């Protein structure tokens, strides 16, 4: 073999540095690829998240505005008598005002179409005004009344005006009236306070999420009050006091198992135990909270235990060394250090409980409830259930309301999870 003539690349490398140099390029390439895969994974997740948000916000933002019509209402003392303030025929006032504004409408059919442009909820709006201020009777006032959901959809562009009349839910005449009202400045998209303050309704323009938000609040209060102390106590006992034997192993396996059990199972358990055995009321946040407590307990116990194991043994030994009892060691030293981690776990568990609807199905919290719950035993529903119910409603206007309700739920979840992160960042200590 002639060594001098052969190119250096072909000769087998002899020194280590040569071997390294040869493979260096390949290794750099592999590293770049590896990083790129990671980046790609993150970008994909961000993309999906962005798509989700875009589709929900894009569909839902318009629900925060509601088409309203301004009418001059004469609170006729003939209609509203002193003793019938509550159940006077307020619809007649609306009709009267509309017919005065459109005197050319005479046929019965047309009159029906005209009155149907306003929401049936305008009656309650007027009633509440009079109940608040009985002096209104006999006076005329300009009042913004909510428009019917079909008109609202037309104004928001969800119904096309160029379709033949038979194929849309708004007639030609109604469009003409709408356009006239718009020209006169009597029709406007106003901020939809109803959506944030009202309970559920079958009329989209009157439906609000406050009922569901209060239901979620009462349910979560019960869940928090029960699951946090129980979870922390269980974790402290298992981690600090219990002997390591077969029994504790068995308990640990069961807790880990429970964390993975499908949530509907907890609903079935709740039905059998809390409703059928204890006879607690159906659809009450009390029972919902109990069921969700069962569901979040394993999460909290597991998080709390890992927070406890993260506290270095030296702290314990030092406490015992200066003469603290075991309880003093736990309460004065270990628990304060582990608490941020426990709180984080609890908040994450709560966030999961907030988004849960399946276990509540079995205990009757998936229901149509108009009244806003005022306590732990009132019938109530929760946010995810409200979303589910609206998604299932035939009226078109519920599409945007469903998305808007999802936005509200997401906002709560983001706040809770951000709270968990802030807590961790602020109080977490690393050793």
């Amino acid at each position: 073999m002639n060594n001098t003539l052969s190119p250096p690349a072909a000769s087998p490398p002899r020194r280590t540095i040569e071997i390294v140099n040869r493979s260096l390029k390949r290794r750099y390439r592999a590293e770049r690829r590896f990083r790129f895969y990671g980046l790609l994974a993150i970008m994909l997740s961000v993309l999906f998240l962005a798509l989700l948000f875009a589709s929900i916000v894009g569909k839902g933002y318009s629900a925060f505005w509601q088409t309203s019509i301004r009418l001059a209402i004469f609170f006729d003392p003939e209609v509203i008598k002193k003793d019938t303030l509550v159940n006077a025929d307020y619809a007649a006032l609306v009709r009267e005002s509309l017919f005065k504004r459109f005197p050319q409408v005479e046929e019965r059919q047309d009159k029906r179409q005209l009155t149907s442009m306003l929401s049936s909820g305008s009656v309650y709006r007027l009633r509440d005004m009079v109940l608040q201020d009985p002096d209104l009777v006999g006076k005329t006032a300009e009042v913004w009344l909510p428009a019917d959901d079909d008109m609202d959809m037309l104004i928001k562009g969800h119904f096309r005006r160029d379709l033949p009349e038979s194929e849309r839910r708004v007639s030609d005449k109604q469009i003409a009236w709408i356009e006239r009202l718009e020209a006169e400045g009597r029709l406007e998209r106003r901020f939809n306070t109803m959506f944030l303050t009202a309970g559920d309704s079958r009329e989209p323009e009157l439906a609000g999420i406050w009922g569901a938000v209060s239901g979620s609040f009462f349910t979560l209060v019960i869940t928090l009050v029960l699951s946090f102390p129980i979870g922390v106590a269980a974790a402290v006992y298992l981690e600090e006091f219990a002997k390591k034997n077969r029994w504790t192993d068995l308990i640990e396996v069961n807790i880990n198992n429970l964390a993975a059990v499908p949530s509907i199972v907890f609903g079935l358990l709740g039905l059998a135990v809390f409703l059928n055995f204890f006879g607690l009321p159906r659809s009450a946040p009390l029972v919902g909270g109990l069921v969700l407590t069962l569901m979040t307990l394993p999460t909290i116990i597991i998080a709390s235990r890992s927070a406890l194991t993260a506290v270095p043994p030296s702290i314990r030994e030092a406490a015992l060394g200066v003469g603290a009892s075991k309880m003093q060691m736990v309460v004065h030293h270990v628990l304060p250090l582990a608490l941020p981690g426990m709180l984080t776990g609890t908040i994450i568990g709560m966030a999961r409980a907030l988004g849960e609807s399946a276990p509540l199905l079995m205990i009757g919290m998936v229901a149509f409830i108009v009244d806003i719950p005022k306590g732990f035993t009132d019938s109530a529903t929760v946010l995810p259930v409200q979303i589910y119910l609206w998604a299932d409603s035939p009226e078109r206007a519920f599409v945007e309301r469903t998305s808007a309700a999802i936005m509200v739920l997401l906002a709560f979840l983001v706040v809770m999870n951000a709270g968990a992160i802030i807590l961790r960042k602020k109080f977490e200590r690393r050793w």
Partner: protein
Amino acid sequence: MKKAVIFSMVTALVMATVAAVQAQQRDGISIVGSSTVYPFATVVAEKFGKAGTFKAPKIESTGTGGGFKLFCGGVGIQHPDISNASRAIKASEFEACRKNGVTDIVEVKIGYDGIVVANSKKTPALKLTSKDIFLALAKEVPDPKGGENLVANPYKTWKDVNASLPNVKIEVLGPPPTSGTRDAFIELAMEPGALKFEPLKKLSKEDAKKFTKLFSSIREDGAYIEAGENDNLIVQKLGANPNALGIFGFSFLDQNTDKIQGSFVDGNQPTFENIASGKYPLSRPLFFYVKKAHVGVIPGIKEYLAEFTSEKAWGKDGYLSEKGLIPMPDAERKQVAENVKATKAMTEVK
């Protein structure tokens, strides 16, 4: 010591709450049952509640069968007062009710609901017969080559089924087996369709059980797609796929007339008028059932019944018809309203 006191106080408090809750009187009506009646019952409940005298009833959509199970659980505030149903109560359910002490039940028929077979407006409306529907959707059909044999459904396109139909793939989105809509669809469309065939007609007389199994088995080879209980989803999918058909309640067609259209069935399109007059074959009565023992105990039941059976609710121009409920003829409404007023309990299941 201090801790023991706190502990015992907490325990006492919990016990007291439980006892208080148990003893509490329910002040609102509790309603369960069919998801088809749900959109109508909720409207009445809301109006009733907003009128101000009583609390708005709480309505759970549990499905007809699930509703009866709860309703027949017994008498007492922990059991619901009213059960909505998209079919009449079955003898077995009535029996179960009696066993648990629910002896007096008032049946209230509220009107009709149409089941539509709809497609996107981008393609022309189909003109179907119940025979076509049976041939397109049954798991087993009579051999197209003749004879009395049953074969696995060979039809791939609507044209295969009936030469006058367009040459597009059979693709039907419909409710799952747990749905009352599917039960009604099978009873109203598949059974009459099957009876159009002589051999099957003979079979229905000879072996009713086998016949029932035949017409109620929907094909599972992908032509029929179970779309879940969410009718809105089906409507959306029809918009995206102009060749597909969907099966759902009339109120969803009524709300989406700009996007979808109902197919003709046996010569009639599902319009409000056609369903009310009985010309459109796929329509079924809707009911609710009231526990008589609760009337007068739970406040507001009588008044809720009066609201539901008033002309402004279930009448021809009532607010329920705006939501898609097809009213009963005048005489029938009057009859039912009178029964309700007298809270006349049913004596047996027809």
